Structures are given as C-alpha cells and as structure tokens.
C-alpha cells in the first residue's frame, strides 16, 4: 500500500572481531581473531499506516538506525521481511528510492562545494522531477523553512540549522510518500527545531506523508508523534500511543495536598502511598502496579480529606520512557 510500512520479524546480525585489550591482546587478535555475532535487531514487527508519524525510540545502540537502514534498503536483514510502500526495500533499491526520502542526522546529502540550489537541481534530475513541479515544491518548502535567504550559498558555508533545513527539503523534493528521519534535529537550536517540527507536521497533516522518526528529544515526540515504538537491545519493548504509554508507565506522579487539620491521621486510599508528611503538608504517590492515574488519585484525595490546597506533579515523557525501559524487559510487546 502506498505510504505504508510493514515490518515482520525483522532481524539483523553482524559478525565482528573481538578486540582483546593490550598489546598482546591486539597481537592475538591479529594472528587468531575471535569472531562474535552481534544481534543489532532481533525479531521486530510493527506497522506504520499511511499518513502516520511514528517515533522509533530507544537508547543509543538500541537498533533504531539499523532498523531504518533495512527499511531504506541500505541493509539486507538476516531474517524477516519489510515492505515500504509495497516494495521490499533491500530487494529493489532503485524502485524503493523513488518512494522514500531520508535524512540521517547531521550527515548531509548535499554537494559540499556547490550552492544549495545546484544540489536541488541535481536531485531533481536524478529523480526525474518535472521543472514546474520542482519549482512549486521548492516554493512550498521555502515558505516554511525560509530557504531562499541562503540557498545560493555554498553548502560548506551554511550553519548546521541551515544545512539540516536544506537536507530536509532535499529529501522531500521528489515527493516521496514515506520519509525516514534519523535524529534530524540533533544539535539544532530551539528556534530551528520548532521550524523543522512545523515543517514535519505540515508534511504529515497536509501532504499525508508517512514519517518514521528517531530522536532522543522527547519534546519533539510529544509535539509530533501520536504513536511510539520503543526498542532496546535490538528488541521491540513496546508499541503504543503516547496516551497508552503514559497510562502504563507514566505513574510517577505526585499529589501535594495541604490538609485543613494538621493532626488528621493520614491513611491513603488503595493504590496510593503516603510519601511525606510535614505538618499539614502531605505528598502522595503511586503504590504498586495497580496505582490509579494522577487524576483518579486527585479525586480520591479530595474525597477522603478536607484540603485547603492541592497540586499535582506529573512525570514528563522522558520520565515515562525511562520507566518504560526499566519496567518492560527486552522482548515485551505491546503497551
């Protein structure tokens, strides 16, 4: 299906040479190398619907980039299958290339010694984009990314933010239904980040592109993604919407209440723990896996005690993700 991504039991292993420490170890590795198998991605399955923006998250070395490289056709999986817009990417690289755009962090695909517009023109010819279509699309990108102020500058003279904006435009100039973005905003300032987010939102909501995004920036995830897939140690840890994940792992809330009577004996409601009490100030938190949501806890505290003031602290998405990594061990699937 145009714009969809289907991943079934995808795995990729690499054969590496174990480097022994020290001079003797290095010599031994040279004479008698010890080979090891590294499972970068193991049995990962998920789908991305056309027009959906999915955040593929995980710590460094989790297997995110390897997964993206298999989906872009750069890398052939050891086992399993993937289809991107109906094409098996690693079997038909050139056909797949017409359906996808990609940005790999700070690695630019632009020609270093040429003005940006020349790079765009080369890509236009490589992808066989008609002139009029190219001009229209460039104008659309310029409206959001403000490229025209520097697109006559040589790439080597651009700032990082300018270059990444140009790279984003370059990746989408041939109107691909599927876009892979591997940490596209890494190292960028907040203003440019927001500009890029707006651009991505526009591409998903107005142009219906499917986007698979990897990032370590949870603000970006909150602003852009409805659904996330978490991988760790090459395995899928969970797959769900942000709400589902928050419900399951975002239980690190605190309810701070000021009791009307400082001498009230505090016996917290089920699923809620008393964390601290100093005079009339009490702090409640979740107790066990069946703890209520923060809003349920708030209601329970108000119903049970006479309070003169109440406030809640919710864990941000970064805390939620941390909790998800800790709680859901490798191999756990579904939110």
């Amino acid at each position: 299906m145009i714009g969809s991504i289907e991943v079934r039991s995808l795995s990729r292993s690499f054969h590496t040479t174990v480097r022994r420490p020290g001079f003797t170890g290095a010599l031994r590795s040279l004479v008698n190398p010890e080979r090891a198998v590294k499972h970068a991605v193991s049995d990962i399955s998920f789908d991305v619907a056309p027009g959906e923006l999915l955040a593929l998250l995980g710590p460094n070395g989790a297997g995110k980039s390897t997964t993206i490289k298999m989906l872009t056709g750069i890398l052939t999986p050891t086992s399993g299958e993937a289809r991107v817009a109906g094409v098996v990417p690693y079997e038909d690289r050139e056909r797949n290339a017409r359906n996808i755009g990609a940005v790999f962090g700070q690695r630019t695909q632009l020609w270093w010694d040429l003005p940006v517009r020349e790079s765009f023109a080369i890509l236009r010819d490589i992808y066989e984009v008609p002139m009029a279509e190219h001009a229209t699309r460039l104008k659309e990108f310029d409206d959001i990314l403000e490229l025209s102020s520097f697109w006559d500058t040589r790439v080597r003279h651009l700032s990082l933010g300018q270059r990444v904006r140009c790279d984003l435009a370059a990746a989408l100039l041939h109107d691909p239904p599927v876009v892979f973005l591997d940490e596209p905003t890494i190292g960028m300032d907040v203003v440019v980040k927001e500009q890029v987010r707006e651009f991505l939102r526009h591409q998903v909501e107005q142009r219906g592109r499917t986007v698979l995004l990897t990032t370590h920036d949870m603000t970006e995830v909150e602003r852009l993604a409805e659904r996330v897939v978490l991988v760790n140690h090459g395995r899928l840890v969970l797959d769900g919407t942000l709400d589902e994940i928050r419900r399951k792992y975002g239980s690190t809330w605190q309810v701070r209440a000021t009791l009307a009577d400082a001498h009230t004996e505090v016996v917290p409601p089920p699923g809620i723990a008393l964390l601290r009490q100093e005079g009339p100030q009490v702090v409640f938190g979740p107790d066990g896996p069946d703890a209520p949501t923060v809003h349920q806890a708030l209601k329970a505290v108000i119903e049970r005690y006479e309070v003169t003031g109440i406030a809640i602290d919710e864990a941000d998405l970064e805390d939620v993700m941390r909790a998800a990594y800790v709680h859901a061990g490798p191999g756990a699937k579904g939110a």
Partner: protein
Amino acid sequence: MAVLHAWRAARVTPLGELHAPPRMTAVLVRLIVQVVLVASLWNGLYDRTTVAAGMSRDQAVTYAVLAVLASRLRELDQYAGRDTVIQHMHFGTIVYWYLRPLSPARYHALRALGEQVYGAAWALAGYAVCLAAGVVEPPRSAAVAGVFVLSLLLGQLVLYHVMLLLDQMCFWTVRNSAAMLILIFAQNLMSGVYAPLWFFPAWFRTLSTFLPFQATLNVPLSLYVGRIELSDAPLQLAIQAGWVVLLHLFTRFLWRRAARRVISQGG
C-alpha cells in the same frame, strides 16, 4: 532511465572548481611550471645527442609535455568537493548513494565523466598554447590525430577503472591513502608521465605490458609522436580495449560486493 536525466551530476566537479577560483589559479600555475620545467629538462637532455631510445628531441619533448597535459585529464585528488568515495566513507554519507534511483556505479561514472571533460578543457587549452609556442609538434597526419584521440579515450577509460578500483577499496579499508600513493607513483612511472617508457630497460617495458598503466598514456602518446607506427595501432587499440573490458567486469563485480559492505563502514 534516471541516468539519462542525471547528466547534471557530471557538472559537480567543474561547477565546484568554478566556485573556487584559488583552486583554478593553483592548477594554472602548476601546469605552467610543469610544462616549462619538463620542456627544459628534455631539451637539455638532448643537448649532446639527436636520438635516444629511438626518439628524436622533438618526439621526446612532445611526448613529455603531452604527458604533463594529459595527466590533467583526471586529477588524482581524493579530497576536493567532499564527493569522493573515501570522504563519503569517512563522513558516513555514502548511504545517500544507495538511496537514489541512480546506482552508485552510474553516479560515480557520471561524476568522473564531468571531471574528465573539465580536465580535458585544461589539457586542450594547454595543448593549443604549447602548439602555438612550438613546444610540441602537431600530429603528422589526420589519421595519426584520429587514432591518437581514440587511443587517448580508451586510455582514459582504463585510467577511470584503475581509479575506481582504488575508490572501491575504501568499502573494505575505509581509507586508501597508502594504496593511492603507490598507485600515483606506479601510474606516473609506468604510463610515461615521469619519462617516456621507451627510455626504460627492456625488462621494465615487458613488465609494463602486463599492467594497465602503459595503456593509459604511453600508447596514445607514442602513437602521436610516431614512436608506435600507425600500422601497429590496431593491436595497441585492441589491447587497450581489452583492459577496459577486463577492468569493467572486475569493478562491476566489486560494486556488487561493495553494496553488501556499505553499512558496516558507512555508519
């Protein structure tokens, strides 16, 4: 086919150079210095003799100066423009070559074509000046000129594939600097850039026939100056064509192998 529309990729090197005037000035200065020194050297060497290694003074000077000019056709610069295999491997941007509907092999060939056309413009301009100044002799006949051009084209194809082999090495070794140094020396020595191959001992010339380097420059230059007779041209052209086919098949095989390596080296 994308390759028909992607001709603009051939403009990468010439455009990059035009946007960098200091680099063009450096090329011009180097070319003038090399031509003057080489012409002076060979004129000096022929001060006490009229014929050496079967070549007259005019033949030797013409051969040596044309060798200098022809070496401009493909610059062995691996670091200009950040669009060489070694640099893409270093920066991890080689992945983009595999994300386009134009195969890396075709893109590489288009880029090289642009480079060689750009180099040819320099060589032609230098040739015109040298011819007008009487530094080099004109070809003896139209037939010699035609065979020379054909032989030079085949020689450039051989050189392209030799350079491609070095580029492909980067997929396995990431860097190829040591191999590049060896190749530049071998290419200059065995193709006749340092000195016409006819001045080397017989065993060296025999050894050269088993290597592709002499097919890049020595054959076309020897045809131009008449050190190889026109009657021997078909055999020499056939040998050059043989090298092109052989190297093409081998590099095509390596492109396929390299595609499996791209991820482990490309990041």
